[in-house]
């Protein structure tokens, strides 16, 4: 395994009852790149994310992140290694405001322990730092004006941004983004991708992105994997992939 890759997925298989959702998936993400994972609906992209992020244990195969074997590791531990994911269908903490949603996602807040939380002076400084960071992040993502709204009472596109903001709060080494720009207008979608590219360039963050709108996506990503019926059927740069007859057929067949 080359050091060059921050994420490696090796021969992963995952079945649900009789359905083979992932079949011998081999792929990887190079450090500091934006890599895309595309494929028709139901091809297994989200399932692959769930396997990487520790929601599902693969039936077979291995997942490595940043030199660690994370196969079957629970999501909370994977997070602490620096791999953070967002969900295709946003999962808000719906009893809390947007601001609290973002604050909660900070890493290592001392006030989160049962004992330390009782003494404000222990965690106040850290909390203020986290608060400033949360405001910065929300400002970058342009959701600061809805900070006080209940997170269940915002639009689907805004929820996607809150997910992204939560993901960024921990300064991860890598983000797994499941359709980060679904349900938002093309202008905003472009902005989101510009922002992600900015993260890559400025902070050296690696990303694996699922996205359906290839016209937008291909302007930004470095490398593309194409998934079909649980298998990786093609890979390459955006140019290579868009000229690959297999990919063209899959997408035409779908349409």
């Amino acid at each position: 395994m080359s050091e060059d890759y921050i994420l490696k997925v090796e021969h992963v298989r995952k079945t649900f009852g009789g359905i083979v959702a992932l079949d011998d998936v081999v792929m990887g993400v190079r450090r500091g790149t934006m890599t895309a994972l595309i494929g028709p609906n139901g091809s297994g992209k989200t399932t692959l994310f769930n396997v990487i992020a520790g929601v599902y244990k693969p039936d077979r195969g291995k997942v490595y992140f940043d030199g660690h074997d994370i196969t079957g590791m629970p999501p909370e531990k994977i997070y602490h290694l620096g791999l953070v994911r967002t969900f295709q269908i946003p999962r808000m903490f719906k009893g809390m405001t947007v601001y609290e949603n973002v604050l909660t996602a900070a890493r290592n807040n001392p006030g989160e322990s049962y004992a330390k939380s009782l003494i404000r002076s222990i965690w106040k400084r850290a909390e203020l730092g986290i608060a400033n960071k949360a405001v910065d992040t929300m400002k970058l993502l342009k959701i600061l004006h809805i900070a006080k709204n209940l997170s269940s009472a915002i639009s689907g596109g805004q929820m996607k941004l809150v997910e992204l903001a939560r993901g960024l709060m921990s300064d991860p080494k890598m983000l797994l983004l499941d359709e980060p720009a679904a349900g938002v207008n093309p202008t905003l979608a472009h902005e989101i991708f510009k922002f992600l590219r900015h993260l890559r360039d400025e902070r050296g963050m690696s990303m694996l992105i699922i996205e359906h709108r290839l016209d937008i996506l291909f302007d930004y990503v470095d490398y593309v994997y194409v998934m079909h019926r649980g298998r990786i059927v093609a890979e390459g740069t955006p140019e290579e992939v868009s000229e690959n007859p297999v990919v063209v057929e899959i997408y035409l067949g779908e349409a």
Partner: protein
Amino acid sequence: MVDKTGLILGIIVAGIIAAFAAVNVSYTLDLIFFLAFYAIAALSLNLEYGYAGLSNFGKVGFIAVGAYTAGVLSAAYGVPFPLCLIAAAIAAAAVGAFIAIPTVKLREDYLGMSTIIIGEMIRILLRNTPTNSVWGGVFGLRGIKPPFDFITNTFERTIAYVGLSVVLFFFTYILLERWGNSPLGRVLKSIRDDELASKSIGKFTYRYKLLALTLGSALAGLAGALYAFYFLYLNPDTFLPLVTFLIWVMVIIGGMANNAGVVLGTAIVILINRLTQIAKDYIHLPLEPNYFQAMLVGLLIILFLMFRPQGLVPEKPVRTPAWRVLEERAPKEIDYLKEGEGGEENE
């Protein structure tokens, strides 16, 4: 932070209690004790259910563990009152942890079913203890040494004891408020709202839930010990599942994850209970009031869940210094709204 419904209802409740006090002081003391006892129990459920989303349907069992631990230690071994309180909390916490360890990582149903079974199991165990032992079986446990026995006047002693109960209630309330209005409060709510998302932002949800149930049980055990030393007599059949559901109604009516609301809910339920007891002597209904009250409990649960699931006093955002940061910075920094689309990108 003034909530209108809550405030008005609070004033009404306080007024009724004051009215009781004007008529009969010792009745009012009894009422205040029950308010303190149930409020501690309801707050402990609020920690488990209101904040962490855990369905503990065996609350009464943990109260019973606390009560009997304190009772047996006092009656059989003459352990001093304060130590009994501590031991009761520890014993109940241990039982809480015992049931939480296998269940909180499973679906919510398992915890609900397990806790209700544990609650009944404890009661049946207590019923079947030998009647000639200190436990007393169905005849109940007697011989608990009265606390504050250095006070000779029984009335003053009662006042002291009720006073202590109120102090412990305030202690519990402050504890819950501290937990609730800290980063911990946010983590617990995140687990309640979406456990997978909470794990995905690195929260060790299993540990948090385990501790919520353990600490909640400790508080329930404390309430149980208070009960034991108030009556100086314990009977297994006072710890019926109905008590658990009474506590649930308090939390549901009051408003989950809102400690003031839960206390208000406690007061309302207790007052309804007291008023029906009083009304029973004056009004003749073709109904048995105690049974009717239990039907009402069931009905209230359903109606509140349907029409006001947030309770009378809805949940508030978690108050931490973070809000001050937002208040200070947000007005200055929401410039992107005026500017239009996309300003800060460096292409």
